[in-house]
């Protein structure tokens, strides 16, 4: 399908995205994805790149390959992210470094490289990942929430810088979804967090794909710089 749309998704080895890769290839996208590790699945029309999202050289190589082999890019889903639940007094600089490199530097790098490719067609859709931990000001997540606050700021400003290129930039802010990311968080903590949502349940993968679908559909060309927090947060 040489003319079918192309999507890049980051952080594809597990979690939310494993579902997203199947969902968007089923919808007719050719998907290129990445994570540090290999994927434990094989899906037609999915191509995997093993890399760290904060490595500039590797990310540039990935985009050179996409330009060469696919020749276009329609959508970027910046999902790769790491969290760390810890009191700030006990947080080592090594986790600060890891969180910001993955969540902020990685998101920026992919936005930059993707926009360069998208602008040749004057069309592009970028969806970044925020979190409800930011507006809920969750204790124990100071660094994670602030890295995602930075992602929100990045989203809002890139929306303006990239508007003239026909590229929209938005973000989805999921509530807790049962993945490895939150498996170490105590159940009581999760319950009290979910009680602060307007709609009190865990998020499902389909809640996230629904928000992404809205942002990337062609009709959403007047929607940019927005963050949709799920669950009514």
């Amino acid at each position, binding site marked *: 399908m040489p003319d079918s749309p192309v999507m890049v998704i980051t952080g594809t080895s597990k979690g939310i995205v494993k579902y997203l890769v199947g969902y968007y290839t089923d919808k007719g996208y050719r998907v290129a994805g990445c994570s540090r590790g290999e994927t434990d699945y094989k899906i037609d029309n999915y191509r995997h790149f093993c890399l760290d999202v904060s490595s500039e050289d590797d990310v540039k190589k990935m985009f050179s390959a996409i*330009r060469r082999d696919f020749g276009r890019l329609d959508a970027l889903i910046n999902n790769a992210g790491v969290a760390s639940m810890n009191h700030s007094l006990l947080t080592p600089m090594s986790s600060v470094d890891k969180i910001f490199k993955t969540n902020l530097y990685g998101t920026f790098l992919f936005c930059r490289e993707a926009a*360069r490719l998208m602008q*040749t067609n004057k069309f592009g859709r970028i969806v970044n990942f925020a979190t409800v931990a930011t507006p809920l000001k969750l204790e124990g997540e100071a660094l994670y929430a602030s890295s995602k606050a930075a992602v929100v700021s990045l989203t809002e400003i890139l929306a303006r810088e990239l508007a003239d290129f026909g590229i929209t930039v938005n973000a989805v802010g999921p509530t807790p979804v049962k993945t490895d990311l939150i498996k170490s968080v105590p159940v009581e903590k999760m319950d009290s967090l979910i009680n602060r949502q307007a709609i009190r349940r865990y998020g499902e993968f389909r809640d996230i794909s629904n928000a992404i679908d809205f942002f990337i559909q062609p009709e959403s060309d007047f929607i940019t710089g927005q963050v949709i927090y799920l669950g009514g947060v």
Partner: protein
Amino acid sequence: MSDNEIILKALYDAVEQVNIDLPADQKLAKSPVTVLFGPGSSLDSLGLVNLIVAAEQKIDENMSVAISIADERAMSQKNSPFRTIQTLADYIDILVQEKTNA
């Protein structure tokens, strides 16, 4: 072709690409003396961004080297490397050499 010729050719390809979106009276000439930045340039800041992005892509395609032209060094030079196509080609030549010798 020498590296400098390949780079100039890549820059002309980039010029062709940005010219598509420029009105007839603002199209850039494919010549080393064409002014890109500052007085006498027909590019606005977005046009210059487009040209630099296109130039990086063409260099990558034609020479298989990924360079970042607009780094801090480029911004802090006394004589801007973005002044003309020739000054830009000379600056890219340095970047390419550094990358390939690294």
